[in-house]
């Protein structure tokens, strides 16, 4: 059966043909000449054409013939009531229970479990079911070898173990997973989505809410909204550092105006409580002044006082830096050089948490390299072999270095630290080069704009290695910025100077954003980030590197011994602080609930009904060939219509023959 089969119903338009043919017997008024029409009454009836249908029996048969033929080609299905007609086949039930944060509101999870149990009770003989927990991830509960089970006790056990999580459920995600969750079986699938149906969980595209099957099997989606009162809810939505103060933002959802109180903790010790008025469904910011933070990362927790509809979003977590920007050595021949000035200024005005510390190359103690997360060299030509070896070792062990070139690098044959070959110097003072290609997919450059305005007068011609990544090239194709993988560290090669002698980059607007992004990337901040949402995936590994360990908010190590070497990512299921420990650094990640889960407002009835209606319409997806019986409750009528068509053809022939004989007899 084709989806285009209903188009055969257009064949019903041919019903007009026999009607027209049978009305060809036209009875016009008799036409007669008359001497003059001057005495005829003009008010008499005007000319009209009266047509009569003739041979009504034959006409009826012909109409029936065409109608039956059109319906037969349209291949209609007769939907039978449950249990009627054909033997009802077994079905596979997917009982998808919303376990997002909002289900933690009072009474919701209990209602969802009760609804799931009711669905299990209504299963019929031969039906199988599996329980699915749907939060930020879709997880099958262990109820059988393949997840599906006909054992009601096992299913009930699985339901009883369902708990609300911290993640956010997008209904499109749950609906989209139905087909894969159903596995490879041929049974018709009935998916039961049991949820509080938060309005914030609706996807932008309504079509994403309709189940689809790659295997062309019939999927029936039944929505089970749980009846739960919408209680007033307040949530901590933000913790920000503002100088020596910490601001905590609280937002209300379906909440009346009133007063909110927040307690602040820093590194486990209470730092006071603040109260502030809040409007209905409004937002309030509570400021904790003069909060002393330790140098480095601080664990800041804001706890909302009182009780509300949802407890899971009453606590907020943040990692705040104390002690001001970190010093990053800028190894230079002249601390007062233009490069030092430009770099210091760029880091200062950007929001980067680093400041440049110009240091003479000759006075730098290479043994202190391990103290720093990253550092800069403004002229590779000034680096001697000893320092180059130390820097290479530092990078290989997980450090990061931005290596620029300057006037002293003009005579180099190979670059120090990286070892890349230098083919000479490009000099285009009269006609400076412009940037020809920028790798916008690299995290270092994704947020930088305006490279087309940079003019390059001199640069080293460096041949990149086979594993190097050219992030930026001039219009003549020479590599200008190269990322070189060196051990587990990061090395950036800038083949021109960081002052404005070889180019005008330091005075271009893009320089500030470039230095800020370079600082973030070299410090590895883009890899983890200090703020994540519950349910997010934290990427850990860089190819082939040792990843270390991740400690969850409860203090448990998340990775096994093998996982410490090859784990690619971890899922941040809980809220709180995750500690990521790598061989070169230690990062702290604050995980909070998704603020959209705090809004407990359910979908309005009209939207829910539209979803149901659209779902029912989508269930008419054609079954796979041979799976008609599996559909179970639809009887194909085409074969019966074809039989009826044959009967009508015979009747039409007999009637036509009879009428023809009668007409001939009358004529004779």
């Amino acid at each position, binding site marked *: 059966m084709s989806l285009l089969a209903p188009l055969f119903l257009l064949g019903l338009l041919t019903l007009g043909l026999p009607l027209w043919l049978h009305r060809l017997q036209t009875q016009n008024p008799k*036409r007669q000449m008359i001497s003059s*029409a001057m005495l005829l009454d003009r008010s008499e009836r005007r000319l009209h054409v009266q047509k009569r249908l003739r041979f009504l029996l034959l006409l009826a048969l012909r109409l029936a013939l065409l109608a039956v033929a059109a319906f037969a080609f349209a291949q209609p299905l007769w939907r039978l009531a449950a249990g009627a007609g054909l033997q009802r086949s077994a079905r596979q039930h997917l009982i998808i229970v919303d376990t997002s944060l909002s289900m933690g509101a009072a009474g919701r999870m209990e209602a969802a479990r009760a609804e799931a149990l009711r669905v299990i009770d209504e299963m019929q003989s031969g039906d199988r079911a599996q329980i699915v927990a749907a939060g930020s991830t879709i997880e099958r509960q262990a109820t059988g070898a393949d997840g599906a089970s006909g054992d009601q006790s096992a299913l009930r056990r699985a339901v009883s173990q369902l708990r609300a999580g911290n993640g956010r459920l997008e209904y499109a995600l749950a609906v989209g997973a139905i087909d894969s969750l159903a596995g490879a079986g041929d049974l018709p699938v009935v998916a039961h989505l049991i949820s509080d149906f938060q309005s914030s969980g609706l996807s932008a595209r309504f079509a994403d809410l309709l189940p689809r099957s790659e295997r062309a099997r019939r999927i029936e989606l039944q929505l089970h909204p749980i009846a739960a009162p919408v209680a007033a809810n307040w949530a901590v939505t933000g913790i920000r550092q503002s100088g020596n103060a910490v601001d905590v933002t609280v937002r209300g959802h379906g909440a009346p105006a009133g007063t909110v109180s927040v307690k602040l903790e820093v590194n486990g010790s209470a730092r006071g409580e603040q109260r502030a008025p809040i409007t209905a469904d409004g937002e309030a910011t509570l400021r904790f002044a003069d909060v002393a933070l330790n140098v480095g990362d601080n664990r800041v927790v804001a706890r909302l006082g009182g009780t509300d509809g949802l407890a899971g979003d009453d606590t907020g977590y943040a990692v705040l830096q104390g002690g001001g920007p970190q010093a990053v050595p800028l190894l230079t021949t002249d601390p007062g050089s233009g490069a030092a000035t430009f770099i210091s200024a760029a880091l200062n005005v950007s929001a980067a948490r680093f400041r440049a510390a110009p240091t003479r190359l000759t006075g730098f103690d290479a043994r202190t390299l391990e103290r720093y997360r990253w550092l800069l060299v403004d002229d590779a030509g000034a680096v001697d072999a000893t320092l180059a070896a130390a820097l290479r070792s530092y990078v290989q062990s997980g450090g990061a270095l931005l290596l620029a070139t300057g006037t002293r690098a003009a005579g180099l044959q190979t670059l120090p630290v990286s070892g890349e070959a230098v083919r000479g110097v490009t000099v285009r003072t009269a006609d400076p080069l412009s940037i020809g290609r920028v790798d916008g997919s690299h995290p270092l450059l994704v947020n930088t704009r305006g490279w087309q305005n940079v003019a390059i007068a001199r640069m080293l011609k460096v041949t990149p290695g086979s594993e190097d990544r050219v992030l930026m090239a001039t219009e003549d194709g020479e590599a200008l910025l190269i990322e070189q993988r060196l051990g587990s560290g990061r090395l950036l090669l800038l083949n021109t100077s960081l002052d404005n002698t070889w180019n005008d980059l330091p005075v271009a607007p893009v320089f500030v954003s470039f230095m800020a992004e370079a600082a973030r990337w070299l410090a590895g901040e883009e890899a983890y980030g200090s703020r994540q949402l519950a349910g997010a995936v934290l990427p850990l590994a860089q190819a082939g590197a040792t990843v270390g360990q991740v400690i969850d908010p409860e203090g448990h190590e998340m990775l096994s011994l093998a996982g410490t070497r090859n784990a690619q990512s971890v899922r941040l299921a809980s809220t709180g602080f995750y500690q990521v420990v790598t061989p070169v650094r230690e990062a702290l990640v604050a995980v909070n609930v998704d603020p959209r889960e705090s809004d407990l407002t359910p979908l309005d009835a009209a939207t829910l009904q539209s979803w149901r209606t659209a779902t029912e319409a989508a269930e008419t997806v054609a079954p796979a060939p041979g799976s008609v019986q599996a559909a179970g409750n639809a009887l194909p009528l085409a074969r019966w219509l074809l039989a009826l068509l044959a009967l009508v053809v015979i009747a039409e022939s007999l009637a036509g023959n009879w009428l023809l004989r009668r007409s001939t007899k009358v004529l004779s």
Partner: protein
Amino acid sequence: MASSAARHDVYNRLIKPEVLAGLANLDLIARTVVEGALIGLHRSPFFGFSQEFAEYRAYVEGDDPRFIDWNVYARTDRTYIKRFLGDTNSHLMVLLDASGSMAFGSGAVTKFRYAQMLAASLAYLATRQHDAIGTLIFDEAVRDYRAPSSRSGQLPAILHSLDAVVPARRTDLGKPFERFREHVSRRGLVAVISDFYCDPDAMLASVQPLAYQGQDVVLMQVLDPFELQPRINDATLFEDMETGEAIEVSPDFMQREYPERVRAHVAALRVAAARAGADHIVLDTSKPLDEPLRQYLLFRGRRR
């Protein structure tokens, strides 16, 4: 002899127009009709060629001055016309309507064929009495005109011209009658043969000047039996033979109201004719032709 003439009369009276129409020769038709009509009639003082003195009458404008009796004038100082019996009916002008409507006929004889035969009969009758005879065939214009004459070749020429006409186009009495007045100044009898499907006032406007000119006019309205009493069983679409206008009418209208309208129209024409000093005769094409000839002769007698 009397019984033989009576039989002959009866015989001719039984000659239906459709039988006459089957005769190809219009001359033969006219001769048959006239001879049949005259047989059995007593010699009438109104007929016959004679130079016998009949009367004097006062000269009026339009009379030929050659017939003024100057002797009387010398004695009485008044102008008188000296009339002879032969002069009183020496001039007959037949005006034949050859418009499209005349082609109508519910039977074997159309109105025009009937009118042709009537005109030929009148011409033959006039010739037989040595009257001058002329014809004017018209529709909306003059299609053929033959000035009155009593020459021997006039009758065949008139019959030929009548025979050659095919009815067509519309009817308009105004222009042909105006031209007729221009050509004929001599007073005489004027027989207008038409179905007169026109406005009675328009007909009056056309005929009245002839009366003022001194012509004695008789309007012979030829109608088909269907026009007098139509019978249809179903709604019928009637198409005007001149204008092409089509009107669908019901049987009830045609059988009840239409005859009344025809009668009213005929009555209106009769009144208009009376106002113009003309006679009006309705001729049924299903009736034999001797009847209109008799009526003509009566008319001729009254107008002496």
